[in-house]
């Protein structure tokens, strides 16, 4: 996984870290039909996203097909410091996973 499929931006301001994450993923619902062949396009979407702060699980998220393509998540973390590590992992309904890390700035 050398491609940058996960973007994480974490900025500390007044003791609160604002975390913005963007994952490249089709989030295919499984309800759409291919216009040419008429066949249903198989569902392919992220089901779980987890975020760790310095190795400790802080946020676990379950996603469904109603989430937009290339899921964007934003949340706020208290008690972070500059240079701390944030790690994001996702898993989709095909069992594929990816992980990325970033430092709080």
């Amino acid at each position, binding site marked *: 996984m050398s491609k940058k499929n996960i973007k994480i931006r974490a900025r500390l301001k007044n003791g609160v870290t604002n975390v913005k994450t963007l994952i490249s993923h089709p989030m295919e*619902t499984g309800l759409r039909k291919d216009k040419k062949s008429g066949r249903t396009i198989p569902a392919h979407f992220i089901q779980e996203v987890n975020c760790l702060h310095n190795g400790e*699980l802080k946020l676990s998220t*379950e996603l469904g097909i*109603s989430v937009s393509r290339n899921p*964007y998540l934003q*949340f706020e973390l208290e008690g972070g410091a500059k240079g701390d590590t944030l790690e994001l992992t996702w898993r989709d309904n095909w069992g594929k996973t990816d992980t990325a890390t970033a430092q709080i700035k």
Partner: protein
Amino acid sequence: MTPNTKRRDFLKVALIMGLAGSTFATGLFAPRYVLAGWNRKAFESKHVNDALKNGFGSLDIVMSDNINIEAPDIAANGAIVPVSVVAKLSAVEAIALLSEKNPRPLGAIFHPRAGIRPKMSVRIKMGQSGDVIAIVKSEGKLYMARRSIKVTAGGCA
């Protein structure tokens, strides 16, 4: 220059083996924490009430002014509707976001741990105009807020 090329080959093999080894190792130790798991029943529910029953085990939900849904009143593109849920409630265990008219209404469930503020933003799809519903579980109780969003171009085509 034969010995040198051999050495190079050896190094290459060693590098590949090393890489493969480390991939294996991370694979073996990947589940470093227990995941909440994906609530299939709730996410596959076709109606809001079923999704809530399957997701939270109860329909005993109180409307609350302490939950604010930030979203545009009119979404030009139903494929990307930015929605934020902000809860002024303590000990929030879960925040869920649903789009009432979608074929599978439940969009996301967040499980914040200590240190995460009860404020989540995500982008959702909306097939047509309708209500977005936020559910917040605080101190074991369920609270709800709604907001109507008008969609000018549906996002599920």
